[in-house]
C-alpha cells in the first residue's frame, strides 16, 4: 500500500501545481471579456455550423486495432517477466499468442481498412 500512497501524492501534487499556476494567472490577468473576443477562432472568418463535424470511420478502425493490441500487451507483460524461468515452452506460447494477433492485423490490412481514404 505504501508505495501507492506515494503515487497518490504525486497525482495530488501534480494537480496542485498546474491548478495553482492557472489560478494565479486567472487572478492576475485582466477580465475584460466581450462576445466578439470570445468567438471561436477560424482563421479570421465567421464560423459556419457546428464543431461536431462528421469524422472518418478510419479513426474508429485505428482505435479498434489499438484496443486489441493494447489488451494483448497487458497479457504479455507478466509473460515477459517470467520468460526466463519457464524456458522454451513459454517462449513458444508467447509466439503463438502474438502470431494470432498479427493475423488480425493482416486481416484488417487485407480488407483495406488501414488506408486513410
Amino acid at each position, binding site marked *: 500500500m505504501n508505495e501507492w500512497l506515494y503515487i497518490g501524492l504525486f497525482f495530488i501534487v501534480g494537480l496542485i501545481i498546474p491548478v495553482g499556476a492557472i489560478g494565479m494567472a486567472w487572478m492576475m490577468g485582466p477580465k475584460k471579456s466581450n462576445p466578439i473576443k470570445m468567438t471561436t477562432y477560424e482563421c479570421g472568418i465567421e464560423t459556419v455550423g457546428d464543431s461536431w463535424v462528421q469524422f472518418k470511420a478510419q479513426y474508429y478502425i485505428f482505435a479498434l486495432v489499438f484496443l486489441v493490441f493494447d489488451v494483448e500487451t497487458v497479457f504479455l507483460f507478466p509473460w515477459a517477466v517470467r520468460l526466463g524461468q519457464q524456458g522454451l515452452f*513459454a517462449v513458444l506460447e508467447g509466439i503463438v*499468442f502474438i502470431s494470432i*494477433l498479427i493475423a488480425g492485423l493482416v486481416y484488417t490490412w487485407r480488407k483495406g*481498412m488501414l488506408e486513410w481514404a
Partner: protein
Amino acid sequence: MTASQIIFLLVAIVTLGSALMVVASRNLVHAALWLVSTLFGVAIIYALLNAGFLAVVQVVVYIGAIATLFIFAVMLTRRDQLEGGVQLNSGWWLGALIAVLTFGGLFGMFQSWSGFSKTATDIPSGFDAVGQLGSALTSPVGFVLPFEVASVLLLAALVGAVYIAFNRK
C-alpha cells in the same frame, strides 16, 4: 476509523457518484468522461487491494483504449442524435425497480454469509504479484489455455468488428 478506511470511503463515493452520472448524463461525451472517472476510482480500489498490476492495467486498457474508442464512436455519429428528446425508455421504472431489488437481494445474501466481514491477512514481504501472475499465465500447469483463448477472442473481436461496421459491399 483508519486512514485506509477514509480513503476507501472517499474513493467509493466518487466512483459511485460518477457511475450515476454515466447513466444519467444526456451528453454522450460527458457520459464517457464520467465513465473514465468511475474507472479511475476502480483503479484506486485495486491499488487499495494491493493489486498494483491490475490498477495500472485498468488505466491502460479502460482509460487509454476503451474510453478513447467510445469517444471516437460517439464522434462518428451526429450531435442531433445525442441531445434532446426523452432519454429513458418507457419501462424505465421497471429497470429502476429491478436494479434496486437486485441490490437488496445481493445485500441480503451477503449478510447471511459467514465470511462477509472477513479482514485481509497481511501480504508476506517479498511477495511478487506480477511474477506470480506471469508464472500462472505461462506455466503448463497454470492458465495457458485461457491465455491463448484470450488471444483468439481478441482476434475474433477485431475481425468481427471490422466486418460488421465496415463491410464495403
